[in-house]
């Protein structure tokens, strides 16, 4: 254990019990700052190009709001369940944590499934693939980038569930779970902007 002290050496919670844990949390926030810029830049590109449909279909024509609404509901709920997982973790309830995390993963899988279906549908029904227009390119890269984040989140949280069973809640696993939940909330936050800017505004035209 390192013994460097910080101004703030109160032990608040398991994930902040060690310097390593605090380092990870801070580092992760910085990483999220980078993610803000990453998604922000993709949004900027999408906003610039969303009306460039190259004689093809536009958002107004193809976006299926019901499916987006369902995806939104699922992701929002999964964000909520990941909060529950952290709460269970703070109660030192290993089973509860694992359970809530599992629910989160299942919801995430549902989301991802719907997204894949949605993409498939666009390509299938409207021939709206990545090469169709600047609009389609920026749409798929932005929403796809979010989708990749979801997929990574699924893998990550699943791994953590495994670790939880193997090692229990420790100062090593707790920060990881906390980070995963931060990550998951962040994905939800990004989705808020996606359904607002891409889908809803796209639908309005």
């Amino acid at each position, binding site marked *: *254990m390192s013994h460097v002290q910080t101004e*703030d050496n109160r*032990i*608040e*919670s*398991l994930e*902040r*019990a*060690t310097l390593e844990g605090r380092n990870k949390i*801070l580092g992760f*926030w*910085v990483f*999220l*700052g*980078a*993610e*803000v*810029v990453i*998604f*922000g*830049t993709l*949004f*900027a*590109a999408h*906003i*610039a190009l969303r009306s460039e449909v190259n004689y093809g279909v536009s958002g107004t024509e193809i976006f299926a*709001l019901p499916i987006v*609404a369902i995806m*939104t*509901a699922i992701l*929002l*709920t999964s*964000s*909520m369940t990941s*909060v*529950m997982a952290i*709460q269970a973790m*703070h*109660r*030192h309830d290993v089973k509860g944590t694992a359970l809530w995390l599992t629910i989160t993963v299942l919801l995430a899988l549902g989301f991802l499934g719907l997204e894949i279906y949605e993409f498939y549908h666009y390509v299938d029904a409207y021939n709206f693939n990545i090469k169709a227009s600047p609009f389609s390119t920026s749409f798929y890269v932005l929403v796809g980038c979010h989708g990749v984040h979801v997929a990574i989140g699924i893998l990550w949280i699943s791994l953590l569930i495994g670790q939880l069973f193997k*090692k229990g809640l*420790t*100062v*090593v696993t707790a920060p990881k779970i906390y980070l995963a939940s*931060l990550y998951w*909330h*962040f994905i*939800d*936050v990004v989705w*808020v*902007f996606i*359904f*607002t*800017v891409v889908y*809803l*505004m796209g*639908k*309005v*035209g």
Partner: protein
Amino acid sequence: MQQASQSPAGDYVRRSRTPEGSRNHLITFVISIVLTILAFAAVMIPGLSREFVYSLLVLMAILQVLVQLGIWMHLKDRGHFWAILAMIFGGLVVVYAVVSVLFWTWYQ
């Protein structure tokens, strides 16, 4: 895992009762749902002006994100100075990017 037994994790659990009730989190959830429904409704209701819908959408999104960042992601809690800074700075860069795109990419 031996390392954990070295750490004060054991005593800590007894000492700290989680101060955060789940109420805040549930309220956040409800707020998010409501904001989302409002946003979808604004688009689905016919006859609203585009400007109105756009501003409403942006407002809803910003509110929702603030609530989620603040409560779900604990930004409102103590000890998040650098985290908040990271978010603000990231947000600032994004605003530059979006503004530049909106106004100058398609200038003329």
